[in-house]
């Protein structure tokens, strides 16, 4: 990886470690291997949502051209959410695509994802089945999402 990307990721890594969100166990990043090309992210399910109490793992791949291109982010923990694929964990979020800007960071990405979990956008790009349920049967949606949280994202205690 080129120097700019590595150097930038190193700084951002420190930024996350020092952040208040980390202190509150709400976001976290870890290195995968020695290089800074692949990282593991963690987001705590936001309070007052079906994701509360869950810890969601993210796969973060940093491209060679970072920060001029966005990191590739995917949910490794299965999640029931209208804007995230229930099968592959792929996220269709504008800031991870054409709305990315070089001034954004890993921290802002993780916080945006946390915000997306708290406020889904069912009228915009969506996983068909999940979105339909979200709009038409919100109670069943909440139950399913909460069930998935317990089964796939539960039981990890932030240290």
């Amino acid at each position, binding site marked *: 990886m*080129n*120097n*700019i990307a590595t*150097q*930038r990721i190193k*700084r951002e890594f420190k930024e996350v470690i020092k952040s208040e969100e980390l202190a509150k166990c709400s976001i976290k990043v870890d290195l995968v291997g020695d290089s800074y090309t692949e990282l593991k992210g963690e987001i705590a399910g936001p309070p007052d949502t079906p994701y509360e109490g869950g810890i969601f793992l993210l796969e973060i791949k940093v491209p060679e*051209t970072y*920060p*001029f*291109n966005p990191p*590739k982010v*995917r949910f490794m923990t299965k999640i029931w959410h209208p804007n995230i*694929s229930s*099968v*592959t964990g*792929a*996220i*269709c979020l504008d800031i*991870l*695509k*054409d*709305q*990315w*800007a*070089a*001034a954004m960071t890993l921290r802002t990405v993780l916080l945006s994802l946390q915000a997306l979990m708290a406020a889904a956008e069912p009228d915009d*790009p*969506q*996983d*068909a089945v999940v*979105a*339909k349920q979200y709009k038409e049967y919100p109670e069943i949606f909440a139950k399913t999402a909460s069930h998935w949280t317990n089964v796939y994202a539960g039981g990890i205690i932030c240290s």
Partner: protein
Amino acid sequence: MIIFAGKELQDSELLEEYNLAEQTVLHAVKSRRRSFKRKSHVSTCIEEDEEFDDTKRAAVNFYVYCTSPCANITVGKIRVRCFICKSGAFTVDSDPKNWNDVLKSKRITGHCEISQCTDGEVGWSEFYFKCSEHVTKGENDEAVALNLIRNNLHDIQCLACTDVRSKVFVYPCDDGHVTCLECFCEYAVSRLRERRFIFDNNLGYTLPCPAGCPNSLINQPYHFKALSKDHFEMYERFATEEYVLKNGGVLCPQPNCGAGILVDICDKVTCINGCGYVFCKKCLQGYHIGECLPKEEQLIIDITSYSVDPKLVSQSKWDDASKVKIKVSTKPCPKCRTATERDGGCMHMVCTRCLFPWCWLCQTEWTRECMGSHWFS
């Protein structure tokens, strides 16, 4: 009176005390005026533009592109002449305070000493730059101002690598975002490789601020001279190709040619200044009479025209592997046909060239239907 760079030199000083460089252009005119001291009345300047910092004046460098003989980005020196008659025998009423004063016309008043010019009326100054790294070749030896490259007087950190470097690039957005010069090059090269420069009819082939600010296109393409020679050539080639394609032209399909040709309505195109190949505008194959054939059929005809071992033929194709790779790993944008690779994420594609939103599965425009039924798989 003796004039140098818009200032009258005082009779009380010796020329050598002014510390002028070799071949400096001075203007000696017979003074025809003026017992009164002109009051400086600078045109209204409301913009809160960054002022040239007087306390650090010595450290202010202007960067320029010197086309000849340096062919490089160099430190420049600012000079002034009359806006009307372009004579250097011109004195300014005040110094320019910011880049707007320098780059925009009619901002700083002055007085032209040439008798036929606007004597008595308010004269306007016009600033220009010279390269300070070669001995001047005279008054017409100008260099292009690179106003976005500046010395980092305020120790601002680069938004990309977060280092504080001495030379920075200040993007023309409202916030004046800053990257170091290295990151500017890195940004430009990554956008160049992805062909994501923007072709603007007025400003040319350029880039916006990397922080995504609106109305922030770099307005002087010479800034891209900061790239390496190879990358700048790439920039020039892509810019030309984009211009040709935007204007309804085609690129010659012959290997190692690729010349841009602006075509009329006729389908038969001849690569006039290039390799001389004659081809069909629609299918980019050799020129033919009648309808274009689908690609596969052409291939069969080519092979069956005389008998050779098909196995040998398949092993002996120049660059066939790349073509196959491109063919299997890409799909054409349904609008502009640019071969597009999908390297992850969802099925919602946005063409990097024509910005058309399309569906990877349907290969048509992206719709709510696509969103609903196969957004992710």
